[in-house]
């Protein structure tokens, strides 16, 4: 038996209101295609360019706990800020982030990444230097590659040493789209 959409929605809203969910997610439409976004009680935990939840649910459960549910209401603020960003009306995100499990160099790199301003770029080497280890640009590349919260933690603003767009978890086309949106490239 298929559960009617309004009943399904009512349960998901009620579940979000209990505050018991370890992670809530939804699929959000964007300029870059559908994005899967997930929040926990600590903040935004995940943005994925692959909107198929099957590949994300287990990872979210491992990160935050088994009570993972699609609960669109819990993503209202995230959705609003992403919509504004893609409409060119927002240059800074005002969302708490859930970076649990990350330590040391990775956290320092992400902290520096978050400071790279809208519409500007930095190189892997520059980011490595700002994070306190100028020779670790390859390690910075790995941190960018594993970034759980792309767009909001703007790894698209990190470019090769001569400014070329190299490597992006979501594909180079998306990186280009984001930099163009921000006016960083023409």
């Amino acid at each position, binding site marked *: 038996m298929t559960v009617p959409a309004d009943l399904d929605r009512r349960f998901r809203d009620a579940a979000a209101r209990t505050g*018991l969910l370890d992670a809530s997610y939804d699929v959000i439409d964007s300029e870059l295609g559908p994005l899967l976004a997930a929040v926990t009680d600590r903040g935004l935990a995940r943005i994925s360019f692959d909107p198929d939840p099957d590949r994300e649910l287990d990872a979210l459960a491992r990160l935050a706990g088994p*009570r993972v549910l699609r609960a669109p209401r819990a993503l209202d603020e995230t959705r609003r800020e992403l919509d504004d960003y893609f409409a060119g009306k927002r240059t800074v995100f005002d969302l708490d982030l859930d970076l649990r499990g990350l330590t040391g160099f990775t956290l320092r790199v992400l902290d520096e990444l978050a400071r790279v301003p809208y519409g500007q770029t930095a190189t892997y080497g520059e980011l490595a230097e700002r994070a306190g280890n100028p020779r670790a640009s390859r390690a910075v590349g790995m941190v960018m590659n594993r970034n759980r919260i792309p767009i909001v933690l703007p790894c698209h603003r990190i470019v090769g040493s001569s400014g070329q767009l190299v490597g992006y978890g979501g594909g180079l086309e998306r990186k280009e789209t984001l930099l163009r949106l921000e006016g960083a490239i023409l």
Partner: protein
Amino acid sequence: MMVAVTSIPPFETFYAENAGDVLRLLRRRLGRDRADDAFQETFLRALRAYDRLRHGEHLRAWVLTIAERVAIDAHRRAGEPTDELPELPHLDGRPAYEELAFLTDTLPAKERAAVVLRYGYDLDYEQIATALGSSSDAARQAASSGVRRLRRRTT
């Protein structure tokens, strides 16, 4: 010996797999109109207990028993005559606890439910308590006095 334990699936997966059957059961017990509130209540009860599950086995039996419990509560609130205890779920048209039936059929209802859920479905006492609407201590007591009663009979 290593025993493979089914890990607990993300709640979304559990919900997606069982929502249709829960709704069907509740509509049969309560009618279309009252089934909606009971549907929400069933999955909220499951959600409250979900992080205390120790394994992911027999979740279908568990949630169907919760739904039966919720239906009984709804009947009771409406002042309608009702059973004391939820009917135990039949899976695939055949009770999965069939091997136990010849033993447990003679037990008092509460002990029977606790013994079958504990030993037939391998649910832990927290799960049984959620399913039967009692405390885990009460579920443990019902199961152990059921087992004592069976021992007395079979020796």
